[in-house]
C-alpha cells in the first residue's frame, strides 16, 4: 500500500482519527492520575510548615531491618504507611515524615482520617452504622464521610465506635467476602499504634554481631537495660545514639524543625558506625531512597505514550519524520525503563521478577527487548514501526497499571519465598512473561487490523506466515496494504509467543517437577497458560481453514491476549492456587 492510496482509502480516514482518539484516551489517565499520592485535605498550615522544614534526607538513608531485609528508612516507611493509609499520603507528607510523626506525636492522629478501608462496599456500611449511632450530628461529619467514601480514609475514633465495632465483628465472621478486608483494617490500626511503629523501627545494628543477629529498635536501646543485645554496647556508644535520638524526638514534639534536622544528621553516621560490616553501603541506601522518591519510575509510561502518537502517524501515513520521532521517543522511554529495571535490580539485589509489580514492569520491558531487534529486522519493510508501537502500548499499559494501582501492584521490595530461590525462576518466569508481552503486542497489531477492517479496509493477510513474510521482504511479497502489514506483524509475534509460551510452560513443568514433585498439577495458572496456548493452536488451524484469514487471526489474537490477561489478573487476584505468590 502506498502513501497516496492510504490517504484516499478508509484507512486514510482512520489514520486521521486514530491518533487523536488514542491520544485522548491514553492521556486521560494522566490527568486523572494526579490522584495517586493525593493529599488528604484539612492540613493546618503550621503543620505543613514544620513538615516542609524538616529535612529527612539523611534519616531516609538510615538502614532499617524489616522482615528479613535491610532497607532504607524511606523505603521502609513507604511500606508501612501503605499498610496504614493505602495509596494515600497524609497531608502530602512523605511517608518517612508521617511515620515519625505518627510514632512521636500519636495524639495528632487520634481523630485524623488516616486508616484506609479498601472495600468500597464496606465504606458505605460503616457510614450507615455511624449514622445509626447518632454520629451524623458530629461536626464536619458529612464532609468527612463524603471524603471517606471517595478515598477510603477514616479515623480510628470512628472505627472504635460501638456501632462500627459491631458491624466489623459481623463482617469479620464472613470469611468468604469481607473478613480479609476487616483484617486489613485491623492491621492498619495496628501499624498506626505508636508502640508498634517504635518497635518496627529497628535501625540499630547488633553490636559486633553477625548477619544472623537481630537488629534493635531505638525503643530497645533506650529502655531495655537487661537485654544482652543492648548491654553488649559500649556505654558511650549507646549513650551517644540514644541521646541524639531523644534530642530528635524532643525537637519533633516541640515542632523544632532545625533541631530535628541537626539531630537526624548526627544520628545517621552514629548508626552506621555501630557495626559497619553489617551496614549496607551508603550508595545502596541512597539509591533505594531515591528509587522510591522517584516513584519507582513508573511514570515512564508517559514517554511510551508520547512515542505512540508519532509511531501511529508514521505507520498510517508512512511519514518518516514522525517515524524517527517515534523511534527517538521510544528509545528514550525504553532507556528510562531499562534504568528503572537496573535500578531496582541494584537496590533489591536480585533480578526483578518475584512479585506482581516486578512481573508486570519486567514483562513490559521484555516487549522493548523483543521489539528493537525485530524493528531492525523489518526496518526496510512495510512492517516497520509496528513492533515498536506494540511494545510501547504494552509497556505503557504495564507501567500505568503499576503507577495507578499501587496497592494491587505494590512496588515494595520484599524477600522471595523460599521456593523461588531457584535458577528456574529466571528461566521459566522470564520466558513466560516475555511471551505474555509478545501476546499483548500481537493483540495491538491485531486490534489495528480489526479497526482497519471496521473502517472498510480490505481483507488482506500474509500468505507465508509471519517470519516467512519478513524473510520474503516484508508484508508478503511487499505490495500489500496496511491490513497485510498488521496481519504480518501479528503472525510474527504470534509465532514468537507460540514457541516461547510452550517452552515457558515446559520449563515451568521441569521446575515444578523437582520443586513440588509433579510437573503438572492442573493449577489454575498452569491451566490458563495452556488455555492461552490452545487459543494460538486454534489460530494456526483456523487460519488454514478459513478464507478471511486476517480477520480470524486478528480476532483470535485478541482472544488469546484476553485469556492471557485473565490468567494474569483474574487467576492471580480472584482464584488462589499454587502460583498465588507470582
Amino acid at each position: 500500500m502506498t502513501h497516496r492510496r492510504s490517504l484516499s482509502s478508509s484507512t486514510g480516514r482512520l489514520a486521521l482519527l486514530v491518533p487523536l482518539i488514542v491520544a485522548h484516551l491514553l492521556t486521560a489517565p494522566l490527568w486523572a492520575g494526579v490522584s495517586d499520592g493525593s493529599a488528604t485535605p484539612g492540613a493546618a498550615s503550621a503543620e505543613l510548615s514544620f513538615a516542609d522544614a524538616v529535612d529527612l534526607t539523611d534519616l531516609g538513608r538510615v538502614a532499617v531491618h524489616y522482615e528479613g531485609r535491610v532497607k532504607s528508612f524511606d523505603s521502609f516507611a513507604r511500606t508501612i504507611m501503605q499498610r496504614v493509609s493505602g495509596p494515600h499520603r497524609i497531608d502530602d507528607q512523605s511517608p518517612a515524615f508521617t511515620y515519625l510523626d505518627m510514632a512521636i506525636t500519636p495524639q495528632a492522629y487520634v481523630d485524623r482520617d488516616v486508616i484506609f478501608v479498601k472495600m468500597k462496599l464496606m465504606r458505605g456500611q460503616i457510614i450507615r452504622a455511624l449514622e445509626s449511632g447518632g454520629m451524623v450530628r458530629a461536626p464536619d461529619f458529612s464532609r468527612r464521610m463524603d471524603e471517606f467514601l471517595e478515598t477510603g480514609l477514616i479515623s480510628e475514633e470512628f472505627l472504635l465506635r460501638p456501632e462500627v465495632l459491631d458491624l466489623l465483628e459481623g463482617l469479620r465472621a464472613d470469611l468468604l467476602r469481607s473478613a480479609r478486608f476487616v483484617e486489613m483494617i485491623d492491621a492498619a490500626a495496628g501499624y498506626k499504634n505508636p508502640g508498634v511503629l517504635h518497635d518496627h523501627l529497628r535501625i540499630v545494628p547488633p553490636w559486633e554481631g553477625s548477619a544472623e543477629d537481630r537488629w534493635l529498635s531505638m525503643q530497645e536501646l533506650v529502655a531495655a537495660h537487661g537485654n544482652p543485645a543492648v548491654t553488649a554496647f559500649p556505654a558511650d556508644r549507646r549513650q551517644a545514639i540514644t541521646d541524639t535520638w531523644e534530642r530528635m524526638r524532643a525537637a519533633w514534639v516541640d515542632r523544632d524543625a532545625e533541631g530535628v534536622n541537626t539531630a537526624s544528621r548526627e544520628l545517621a553516621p552514629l548508626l552506621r558506625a555501630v557495626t559497619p560490616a553489617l551496614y549496607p553501603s551508603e550508595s545502596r541506601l541512597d539509591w533505594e531512597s531515591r528509587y522510591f522518591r522517584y516513584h519507582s519510575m513508573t511514570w515512564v509510561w508517559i514517554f511510551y505514550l508520547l512515542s505512540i502518537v508519532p509511531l501511529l502517524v508514521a505507520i498510517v501515513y508512512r511519514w518518516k519524520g514522525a517515524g524517527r520521532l517515534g523511534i527517538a521517543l521510544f528509545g528514550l522511554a525504553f532507556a528510562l525503563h531499562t534504568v528503572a529495571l537496573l535500578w531496582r535490580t541494584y537496590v533489591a539485589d536480585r533480578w526483578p521478577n518475584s512479585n506482581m509489580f516486578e512481573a508486570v514492569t519486567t514483562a513490559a520491558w521484555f516487549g522493548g527487548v523483543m521489539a528493537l531487534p525485530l524493528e531492525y529486522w523489518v526496518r526496510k519493510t512495510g512492517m516497520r514501526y509496528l513492533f515498536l508501537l506494540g511494545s510501547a502500548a504494552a509497556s505503557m499499559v504495564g507501567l500505568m497499571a503499576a503507577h495507578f494501582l499501587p496497592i494491587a501492584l505494590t512496588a515494595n521490595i520484599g524477600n522471595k519465598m523460599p521456593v523461588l530461590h531457584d535458577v528456574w525462576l529466571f528461566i521459566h518466569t522470564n520466558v513466560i512473561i516475555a511471551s505474555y508481552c509478545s501476546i499483548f503486542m500481537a493483540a495491538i497489531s491485531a486490534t489495528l487490523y480489526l479497526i482497519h477492517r471496521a473502517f472498510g479496509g480490505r481483507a488482506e493477510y500474509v500468505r507465508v506466515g509471519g517470519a516467512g513474510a519478513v524473510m520474503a521482504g516484508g508484508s508478503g511479497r511487499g505490495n500489500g496494504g496496511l491490513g497485510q502489514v498488521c496481519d504480518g506483524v501479528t503472525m510474527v509475534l504470534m509465532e514468537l509467543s507460540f514457541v516461547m509460551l510452550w517452552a515457558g510452560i515446559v520449563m515451568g513443568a521441569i521446575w515444578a517437577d523437582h520443586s513440588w514433585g509433579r510437573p503438572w498439577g492442573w493449577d489454575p495458572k498452569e491451566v490458563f497458560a495452556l488455555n492461552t496456548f490452545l487459543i494460538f493452536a486454534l489460530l494456526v488451524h483456523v487460519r488454514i481453514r478459513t478464507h478471511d484469514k486476517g480477520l480470524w487471526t486478528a480476532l483470535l489474537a485478541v482472544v488469546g491476549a484476553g485469556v492471557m490477561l485473565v490468567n494474569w489478573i483474574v487467576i492471580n487476584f480472584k482464584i488462589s492456587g499454587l502460583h498465588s505468590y507470582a
Partner: protein
Amino acid sequence: MTPVDPASPLKLPRASGPFGWLVNLFSSITFGIVLLSLLFVYSSIGSAGILYPTSFDITSWDNWAQISVRQLRGFEMTEFEWFHWWPFDLLIGLICVNLSVATLRRIPFRVVNYGVWMIHSGIIILALGSVWYFGTKFEGDSPVIRRQVRIEVPGAEAVSMPAVPGNRTVVQGSTGRYGFQVTNIDPKWSLRSGADEGKVAYSVQVSVQTPTEHFVRQLLVGYPEYTEDVVRVPGAMPPMVRAIKHLGRPLVDEELKLALEYEPQQYVYLANWISKNWALYLRERGTSEWSMRPVDGLPLFNDSIGSYDDVWIDHDLPLDPVSIDVSSVEQSDPLAGTDVRITGYLRYATMQRRRIPGGERLNPAATIRLRDPNGRSQDFELAAFDPAGFSAEGGSLQLRWVDSVAARTKLTRPVEPLLTLRVPESEVDLEIPLTPRMRLEPSTEFTPIEGTPYAYLVEYWMDDFEVTPGMPLISLASVRLRTPEREFQRWVCDDPRFNRDMEANEDEDHSGHDHEQNPHDPHEMVGERQRTVPTFEGIEALYRKGFAPAPLTLVAGPGEDELHFISLAMPAGSEDLGPTVETRHVKIGEEVAVSGLTATVTSFAARARIEERPFVVPLERRYRDAREQNSMVKVGVQGAAQSVWVPYHHYAFRDANEDLRRHFYRPATVRLPDGRVLDMILSRERLPLPMAVALDDFDVDTHIGGFSGRVSSILNWTSHVRFADGDGWSESTPVSVNEPHNHEGLWFFQAQWDPPSGARFEGDAPSAGFNYTVLGVTNRHGVGVQLLGCCIAVLGMIYAFYVKPLIRLRRRKAAELQLAGGSPGPGALGDLAGDQA
C-alpha cells in the same frame, strides 16, 4: 500446523469403505478445531469455574463471585479428577487420533514439513508419557518426628513418646506410678562441657514425677553421656539446681532410664486434594495399631446428610443422603466380616452440645433473644440447673426454676449477704450482716472479736462474678484479720474450698479508699498481686452471699409451661430510690420491653435433655485453607446401637502425643453388642513406605537478622533424613526446598515444617519448633517421556516457523535464478513445486 501452505489447503481424496466416514472425520482440520475448542471450554470451566457479577458495578473485584463447577454437588471432583474424567480423556484421545490421521493423510513427510511432523509427534509422545505418568502417579505426605523419648521404668515394659513439647505419659512401675512430660525442647542447645563446649545439640527436657521425687531430666541428641537431672531446691536462686551439684551425682534416680531415639515413619498418606483418598481407621480399645478401610464414593466438597435431626444447622442445606459400604481389606481388621456403612458426610462442622425438649427429668432450659434499639440481637442459651449455664453476661441475665409462687416472689426481694467468723478455741460465733451502709461508709478500724485476741476489718464483698468464662460464678468477701502475731487478708468464698489467706498488702491504703468506686479486680487478685500464705486455722470464716434480683431473670415454674420475666427498672426521677422490680408473665415468642431492650423467649423446655451433634458451619464462616480438616462422616456399625460421627484426622495418630501440636486426636467410640469398644477415625489412605524414614536433623537458613518466627525471614528449610537400611540407617541426606531426594525410585520433598508455637491451653508447654518435618513423597514415572515429547514439539515449532521459511526462501531464490538462466542445481523448480503442495 503451519507447514501446509495456508493459501492452498491440501485437497484430500475422500476415503471410502465401511469406515471411510471415520477416516474422513479424523482427517478433518475442522474436526480438530472443534476438539481444541471443546478442550479450551472444558479446561476453563474445570479450572477457574464460572465468574459472575453480583452487582451492576462490575469494576470492583468485590462484586464478582465464582462458582467452581467441578466442586458442585454431582461432580465433586478435585482438579486432578476433573482432568482425568472420561470426557477429558476422550477429548485428548480424539485429538491424538485426529492429529495422527490428519498428519499421515495430509502432510507429506518432506523436508519442509519436518516441523509440523515434530510438533504433532511431540504432542502425541507427551500424551503417551502423560498416560504413563498419571496412570501410575501417587502423591502424599509423611510426617516425621525428630526424636522419641524411650522410657524404661523399673518393673515395667519400655515405652516411648514423641519428643514434642507438652507430650506426657504415665507408666506403672514396680514401685508406683511415674509421670513424664516433655517440658522444653531447645533445638540449638549450646554445650558447656569440656571439649564439646560451644557445640550445639538438640536438647529435650522431661519433667519426671516418680512415686517419691520430682525432677527434670535433660537429654541431648548425640551426647548421652551428658544426660543429667535438675532438681528444685527450696531457697536456692535460681531454684533449679543441677543434681550433680546438689546430690553429687548427675541422676536423681539411676534406675530410671530415658533416652532419645529416632521416631521412624513407616507410611505415606495419600493427598486428598489430588484425588479423593478417604479411609476409615478402626481399632479395638486398648490396642495401638489402626486397621485401614479405604472409602470409595465419599464426597469431598459438599455436605451429605439424610436427616436434619443428624445435625445442628442454621442455613439451607438439601438432604442428600449417602450410603457407602466400607469394606475391610486388611487381615488385622478388628471388624472383619462386619458391615460398616457411612451414611453422612460433613465438609466443615464442629461437635456441639445443645439442650432440646424430650428429657425425662425436670431440667429447664431456655433460649432468650435480646435485641437493642438498633436492631442488633443476640441469643443466650441458659439452663436453670447448670451452675455454669444458668446465667450469662456476668450474671445480668439468668434463668431460674421455682416450685412455688412464693419462691418466685422471693426472687424479687433482696437479701443481705452475711459473713460468719468462728473462733473454735473460744467458741465464739460472730455473724456480720454486710449492709449497703457498710459499703458506702467502709470502716477503717479493726473490730475486735470479743472474747478472742483477734480483730477483723471487712474490706469489700462481691457476689456472682465470673473468674473463668463457662465456670460457676463465685461470691466472696475480703476480710483483714489481725492476730497478736500478724495481720493477713482472707478471701471468704461462698464455697469454702476456695477460701485462702494472703499476705497483707502493706502498700495498700486501707484507711479510706473507696471500694464502691474502685473495686478490686478479682481477676487481678487471684494470684497476681499478693502471695498466698498458709491458712490460719484459729479463725474459721463463712460467707453467705446475698441476693439481688438480676437485671433480667426468666423464672420458670411452678407450672412447667409457666414463664415470668423479673426485671429491674429505673423509673425516671426515681434514681435516688434505686431500681424497682417488675414481674411479668411471658409467652414463648412474645416480645417484652425490658430496660431499653426487647427480650424474647425463643424456646423453652422444662424437661430438656442434652444432645451432641455436629454443627454445620455456614459457608461464609469456613476457613478456606482448612480443606478437609473439619470434615466428619456418620458411621454405622452392624450391631451397634447407633451411628456415630467420626471426625477427620490428618494422620492416623496412635494417640494424642502424635498430633504434632497442630492437629487433634479425638477418635469416635462405638460399643459393640459383644462388649468390645471400638475407636474410629476418618483420615486418608496410607501406603507403607518401602523403607522407614527418620529425621536426623532439621535446619532453617534465614535472611539477614536470623529467624524472627515469621516465614518471611526464612530462606530455606532442610530436613536431614535417614532411610532404614537393613538393621541400621543410611547416611544422613538433606532434603530441602527445590532439592528433593530420590531414594529407591521414590522422591522425597520438603513439604512442611514445625513452626514455633505458644502454649495451646493452660498447663501446656510452648514450643520452639523444629521437632518434626513433613516430607512430600511421590513417584514420577514417565516424566522423561513427557519431557521428550515437549522438546520435540518445541524443536518442531522452531523448525516450522523459522527454518522452513528459510528453506522455502532459498528454494525460491534458486528457482528464480534458474528461470533467469543461472544454474541453481538440479531439481530447484521441482522442490518449489513440492513446497507449494
